[in-house]
């Protein structure tokens, strides 16, 4: 971008300050002066008002918020002697959590203001350039019109981006910061303060007390993600082939039967499954009635069986989705290859292995990796079906079937070990990032292959 602006002969802000007239120079201190004194009164006043508002905020709240960020509070809640009253009064103390949140919000606000300041300087530079060229300055109406034309993206994106800033970026920065603090169940604000501890939580998770939970949960998460993705993908395609085979009548009806299960909200179907496979649930009752088993099968309470059950139930949930997508692909596959193979005497399995399956894989590969990442983060299936149970007394607030995400949830909601939860969150992020990167390079290689 810099190269481009130089080639257009645009001034740097330093050159602008040297060459500009007094209103432009004043714009460096009072935003919008150049606009006001050159007839763009409303635009200039808007700049100025924003600057006044920012300075006022900085004086009232901003400086305090920033200065507390380093210590995260020094006064703990407790009783202190009030000399004038001669009795002990309760001192509210600093709330480290709010101090951290406001501190980060303050940094974001300051960055926003710096951005605004640059916009102001750019506007001054534009005025300078237009005046030198002897061209008229855009009126307010022209400026507003440009918001529907060359600057249309500003109109479309500014409100959504404010939402992202408030509800995604700010919380995320906050939680990432938490990973470097001592915010756990022993340091809960407002009663206690918490502090910066550097990388202590990370080493705790990877080599310390928590490693004994972390590595088993991580291993199970990866095993689960591979198995869940592979089974639903493979059997989904088989089901699609079964329905779309030549000569099968009522394809639409068959398809609809499976699609219905997809439409039932997951929390309904999964809670239902949890009841169905309960120790005293209908499946066990039926098997006992038929005399096939004496004792109820612990589908969801035995560590290994629970893992298997979870994967099977996930197949119930996921196969129709793959089936539906694969159907779209299968009906569009060129048939000449298959016919040629049939003439050459290939059997159905050979056709599937060498022709149909590779073609489907080719189309679905990018979404397959997406699904894999989705399964690493598959909260619903585990949480609703087993809730991470059966319990394992060696684990720190996790059960046998807990994935990293459900463990994260438990660490925040039940154990209140927010710092550990944040570390886990960052690790999940790294996992997703690695696989996404892999997916990205793979899919671009696919693109060149397809071209």
């Amino acid at each position: 971008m810099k190269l481009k602006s130089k080639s257009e002969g645009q001034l740097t802000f330093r050159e602008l300050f040297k060459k500009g007239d007094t209103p432009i120079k004043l714009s460096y201190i009072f935003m919008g002066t150049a606009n006001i004194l050159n007839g763009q009164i409303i635009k200039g006043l808007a700049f100025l008002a924003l600057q006044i508002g920012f300075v006022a905020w900085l004086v009232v709240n901003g400086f305090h918020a920033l200065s507390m960020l380093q210590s995260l509070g020094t006064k703990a809640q407790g009783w202190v002697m009030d000399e004038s009253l001669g009795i002990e009064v309760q001192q509210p103390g600093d709330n480290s959590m709010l101090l951290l949140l406001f501190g980060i919000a303050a940094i974001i606000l300051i960055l926003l203001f710096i951005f605004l300041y640059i916009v102001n300087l750019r506007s001054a530079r534009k005025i300078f350039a237009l005046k030198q060229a002897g061209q008229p300055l855009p009126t307010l109406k022209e400026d507003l019109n440009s918001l529907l034309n060359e600057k249309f993206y500003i109109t479309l994106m500014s409100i959504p981006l404010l939402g992202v800033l408030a509800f995604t970026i700010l919380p995320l920065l906050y939680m990432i910061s938490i990973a470097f603090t001592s915010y756990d169940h022993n340091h809960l604000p407002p009663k206690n303060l918490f502090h910066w501890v550097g990388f202590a939580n990370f080493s705790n998770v990877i080599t310390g007390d928590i490693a004994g939970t972390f590595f088993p949960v991580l291993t199970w998460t990866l095993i689960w993600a591979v198995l869940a993705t592979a089974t639903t993908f493979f059997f989904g395609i088989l089901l699609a082939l079964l329905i779309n085979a030549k000569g099968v009548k009522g394809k639409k009806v068959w398809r609809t039967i499976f699609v219905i299960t997809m439409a039932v909200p997951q929390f309904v179907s999964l809670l239902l499954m949890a009841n169905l496979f309960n120790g005293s649930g209908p499946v066990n009752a039926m098997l006992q009635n038929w005399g096939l088993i004496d004792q109820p099968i612990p589908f969801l309470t035995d560590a290994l069986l629970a893992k298997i059950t979870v994967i099977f139930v996930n197949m119930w949930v996921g196969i129709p989705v793959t089936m539906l997508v694969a159907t779209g692909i299968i009906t569009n596959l060129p048939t000449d290859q298959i016919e040629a193979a049939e003439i050459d005497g290939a059997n159905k399995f050979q056709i599937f292995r060498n022709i149909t399956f590779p073609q489907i894989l080719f189309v679905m590969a990018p979404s397959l990796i997406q699904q894999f990442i989705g399964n690493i983060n598959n909260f619903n299936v585990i949480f609703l079906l087993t809730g991470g149970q059966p319990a394992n007394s060696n684990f720190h607030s996790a059960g046998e079937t807990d994935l990293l995400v459900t463990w994260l949830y438990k660490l925040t909601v039940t154990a209140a070990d927010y710092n550990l939860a944040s570390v886990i969150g960052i690790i999940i992020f790294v996992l997703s990032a690695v696989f996404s990167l892999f997916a990205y390079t793979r899919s671009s290689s696919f693109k060149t292959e397809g071209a």
Partner: protein
Amino acid sequence: MKSKKRNHLVLHYTLLTILSIVWIFPIVWIVLTSFRSEGGAFVTYFIPKQFTFENYKMLLTSSTYPFVQWFLNTLFVAICSCILSTLITIAMAYSLSRLRFRARKPFLKLALVLNMFPGFMSMIAVYYILKAMNLTGSLLALILVYSSGAALGFYIAKGFFDTIPMALDESAMIDGASKFEIFTKITLPLSKPIIVYTALMAFMAPWMDFIFAKIILGDNVNKYTVAIGLFTMQTKDKIDQYFMAFTAGCVLIAVPITLLFIFMQKYYVEGITSGSVKG
């Protein structure tokens, strides 16, 4: 040869029938249970001995579990966040696909990174931000959170816009149309499938989400959405008493969503494939 083919078909049909039973069975079971008149969470048989509408009556009139109120809450949230989310997603996707500006590429990368953090991680912080805005326990907070989440879920819609030929825009531009006119008069009319898909997904989300909703709404039972409401009905201490009312609630929720889904199936597939094929 012919008999071999018929054997194949018989095999196909048997397999399909067995699989259909496996898939349909839990759904049939829940519908049957919702009409069961004998009490208790678990019984040892599938088909109820006696059928009754009592469970539905209990569900719709219970004062501890105001199901009708929950339903209206969810409907309200779903409609609002459906409208807002669709507007936001389409606006973002269109900007990032069709308009060219300096921050476009960096923003696409940033969005990719942001999407890789698990949503639950920031849940607690979102709660405190809403609390600072004095919004916790209100439906407005839910609408805000769902809609602002839509701003980063633009990938599928962007993939769709990418497939509309740029030549259309260019010829309109030569005729003197502004970007706004191109957006409203050319792109939007061509984008019905993706608009329907986005709206459908946004509409369905509030019916299914219970984690964020539970954290934001807390103990305010009157503001619950159906998902949290039903979830609270089947906790260990409540399940014996309320299990059948719970199943009745599930049926009442699942029916409209299922119908909507089957009706919109075509758009759903188009949405998934248009996004995934483009990568």
